[in-house]
């Protein structure tokens, strides 16, 4: 109301003017102006109070929104961190799984893994028929390598032999580190008639040179091969392979004996 202050001033000027003192309208105007002023103050106060309430409500709303945003952000962070811990645990689990079933030096399956795998194969054959062959291969004169070149070279030879042996495997064959310089092969689905060929393959793979082994001493292996006979235990099959290996050693090494 742009004329407001102006009108107020004009009314106040008339009320203050001595010339208007006897005007019969003056007392009425004075009363009316007093009532107007009171109402004006009341409206101003109401507006101010109402504004304050509105501001307080708005602040409250904002603080709720802020709180909510903060909580959402916190939950997002908790979820993210929790996911990372979980994936850390999963990786640790995988690593432990690998360590518990594999040999660190050669990365081949270890003795425990092989035992489990052979027992699976035995159940399989007992249930569904078929056959499998086990071969026990031992590096000849390995002790001499350790004694002559030291254990670090011994480890290199073991790792190199393991690499070569792995390359000789078909998809379903398994080769594990059975003991110190002893390796055990499982050939699923193979029978007696294939034993010689399998033994040849094991021995032959050591003869093809890997450039990484260029400065390592060349080694040979003695091998004992046998077929699983239904009804027997894993230990009985292994004992026969071990005896065949012993015979190969006794007969001058670098050869395979089939039992």
């Amino acid at each position, binding site marked *: 109301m742009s004329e407001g202050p102006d009108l107020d001033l004009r009314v106040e000027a008339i009320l203050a003017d001595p010339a208007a003192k006897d005007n019969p309208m003056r007392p009425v105007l004075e009363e009316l102006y007093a009532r107007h002023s009171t109402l004006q103050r009341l409206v101003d106060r109401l507006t101010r109070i109402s504004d304050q309430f509105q501001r307080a409500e708005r602040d409250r709303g904002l603080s709720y929104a802020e709180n909510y945003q903060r909580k959402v952000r*916190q939950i997002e*962070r*908790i979820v*993210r*961190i*929790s996911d*990372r*811990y979980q994936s*850390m*645990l999963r990786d640790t689990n995988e690593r432990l799984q690998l360590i518990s079933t594999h040999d660190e030096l050669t990365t081949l399956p270890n003795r425990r893994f092989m035992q489990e795998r052979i027992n699976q194969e035995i159940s399989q054959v007992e249930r569904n028929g078929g056959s499998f062959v086990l071969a026990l291969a031992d590096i000849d004169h390995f002790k001499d390598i350790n004694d002559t070149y030291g254990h670090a070279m011994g480890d290199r030879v073991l790792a190199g032999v393991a690499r070569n042996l792995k390359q000789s495997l078909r998809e379903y064959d398994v080769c594990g580190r059975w003991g110190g310089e002893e390796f055990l092969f499982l050939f699923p689905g193979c029978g007696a008639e294939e034993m010689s060929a399998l033994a040849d393959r094991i021995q032959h793979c050591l003869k093809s040179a890997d450039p990484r082994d260029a400065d390592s001493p060349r080694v040979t292996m003695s091998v004992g091969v046998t077929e699983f006979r239904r009804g027997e235990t894993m230990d009985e099959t292994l004992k026969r392979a071990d005896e065949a290996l012993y015979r190969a050693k006794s007969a001058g090494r670098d050869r395979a004996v089939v039992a």
Partner: protein
Amino acid sequence: MTDLNIPQSNSSPAIRASWADGVVTMKGDSYPENSFELFQPLIDWVDSYLKTAGRALHSELELLYLNTSSIRALMDVLDMLEGAHVGGGRVSARWSYDSANERVGDLAEEFKEDCTFPFEIVATGDRR
């Protein structure tokens, strides 16, 4: 306020709080059955210390694995420290981890993200 001395177990970290030294220490794994029960005394202690001690509070962390509710509890503690810092209090934290376990260091960084008070992350031990 008495000191806290909660011994380490298979599933919960060692938690120590010394009023005289103004130091809170947490060390180990944390996946307790009831993380509220485990951490509430610590949260109460920190709250009371920050409100009444009028001295600096340092926290030494050496935590490995935390389950989700422990993450939340630790975040609450760090939020309290942050609140104290913003209000002018002297607070600090140091998270030590084995350098062989780099991922724990990454996780410590995640916890640090919203903290503006001095928060040090230190790799310890020799990398093998």
